[in-house]
């Protein structure tokens, strides 16, 4: 660990964002979900991965927002995009057409086979809590070459089986991506290959596709992760220690968030009249 990183404090949320950002290789074409994924993807673009191509479902392609969008269709995304296409074109040509390397998603719940639930808690016809629904996620998760998921780690979010599979990871039995029709297989991605939380990284077991912890963030204990996970979570034999954020990463992230706050506070100054 270098001197530059030791000197700085950071929050678990910052740790999560920086780690999520690092997962994006420079040059990746990334279909970005709003919120945490958007924050991480833009941090990647502003640090180690300047040529990362960001696509938002609002139709904005290769966009380079100076501030984080509050919604998936902020004017900033269009103003800084290479081009903006219609939403049908976005989902048909760009996502289903196979041009997305990484689909970067948030979620309300995730289960041990990386299935995502953003629909509801409880029964569909008698929901305890009604959540927003699928949005772009169901097809982002199947049409992207691979999927990253970022979510705060807790027993409420990491459940053994989600109440509702809005968006498939590997299905109820971990086998949803096996034995597909050959034409489907040609277009279907690998699914969630990485889950980034504020405690650790998880990846699917190559055989069973059950999510297992592969890297633990600095200062986090195994017990904390077990405690925050709704199933008997397993740890990889080769368990990594997630590197801390660098001072540069923290600076860029904090400046991005400060810039964003200033921008969204001054609503009416945000766009040319």
């Amino acid at each position: 660990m270098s001197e530059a990183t030791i000197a700085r404090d950071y929050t678990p949320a910052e740790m999560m964002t920086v780690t999520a950002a690092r997962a994006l290789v420079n040059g990746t074409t990334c279909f970005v979900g709003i919120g945490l994924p958007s924050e991480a993807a833009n941090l990647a673009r502003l640090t180690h991965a300047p040529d990362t191509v960001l696509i938002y479902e609002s139709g904005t392609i290769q966009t380079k927002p100076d501030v984080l969008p509050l919604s998936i269709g902020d004017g900033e995304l269009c103003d800084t995009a290479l081009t903006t296409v219609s939403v049908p074109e976005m989902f048909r040509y760009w996502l289903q057409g196979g041009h997305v390397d990484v689909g970067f998603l948030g979620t309300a719940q995730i289960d041990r086979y990386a299935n995502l639930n953003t629909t509801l808690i409880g029964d569909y016809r008698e929901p305890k809590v009604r959540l927003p629904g699928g949005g772009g996620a169901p097809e982002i998760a199947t049409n992207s070459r691979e999927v990253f998921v970022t979510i705060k780690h807790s027993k409420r979010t990491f459940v053994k089986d989600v109440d509702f599979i809005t968006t498939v990871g590997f299905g109820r039995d971990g086998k949803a991506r096996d034995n597909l029709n050959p034409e489907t297989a040609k277009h279907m991605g690998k699914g969630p290959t990485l889950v980034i939380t504020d405690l650790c990284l998880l990846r699917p077991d190559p055989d069973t596709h059950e999510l297992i912890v592969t890297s633990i963030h600095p200062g986090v204990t195994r017990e904390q992760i077990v405690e925050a996970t709704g199933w008997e979570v397993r740890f990889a034999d080769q368990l990594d220690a997630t590197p801390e954020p660098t001072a540069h990463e923290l600076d860029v992230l904090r400046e991005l968030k400060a810039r964003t706050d200033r921008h969204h506070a001054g609503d009416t100054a945000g766009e040319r009249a």
Partner: protein
Amino acid sequence: MAEFMSLHDAIARYVNDGATVAMEGFTHLIPFAAGHEVIRQKKRDLTLIRMTPDLIYDQLIGMGCAKKLIFSWGGNPGVGSLHRLRDAVEKGYPTPLEIHEHSHAAMACAYEAGAAGLPLAVLRGYIGSDLPKVNPDIRHIDCPFTGERLAAIPSNRPDVAIIHAQRADKQGNVLIEGIIGVQKEAVLAAKHSVVTVEEIVDDLNAHPNACVLPAWTISAIAVAPGGAAPSYTHGYYPRQNSFYKEWDAIARDRDTFAQWMEEHVINAGESKGASA
């Protein structure tokens, strides 16, 4: 052929009780002014179609205009829940709301297919999702060439599409710029369409491949400056992000909501029954 009229008259003529209505605009160009006029005219039993219900449908639902919602993401973007939508779904207040739930990809394809005059949209969608278990409109076809099983859903063909756009020329041709969403598809798929615009100009000055709706695809055009606020109009005014945040507290409580709507929509109507 597009007829210029007041917003009041346009809604009165084209939005009937029981109609299937699509108000589109993907974060950008959401037709709030038109939605408010629908509320003021107390339209009932509407089937509302929209990818992202947003505040506009939270308001319509909370005011009892809707009996059914076809949608794909029902949140307050960047903020949280749509409380009026949730109250209708969870508690049946003010009236029960039937929901037909899709993914964005499917909804976008359903508009595309509607514009293309087809009865169904075909997509590689819903694989492994539970949505087909709860939405009987999600079915499948088999590709006669590859044997691949693909999702099929009915196309969206609303009775009336309502959108907001930057401007119309005097002949009634309309230009939409920036994040164009599914507005063109919604208008072309619909039997009738109402377009509100920021202004009317002599010449659209449009790029050869711009998103332009010819006058003969539109039923009515109403001038409604600021008609997308608190959403935004690219080139005119920004999104009122702060209002989207404030809405959470307003909509959370039934009475606060009712009071806010009374004050800001019911009593603030531009045309309250008057003809322009």
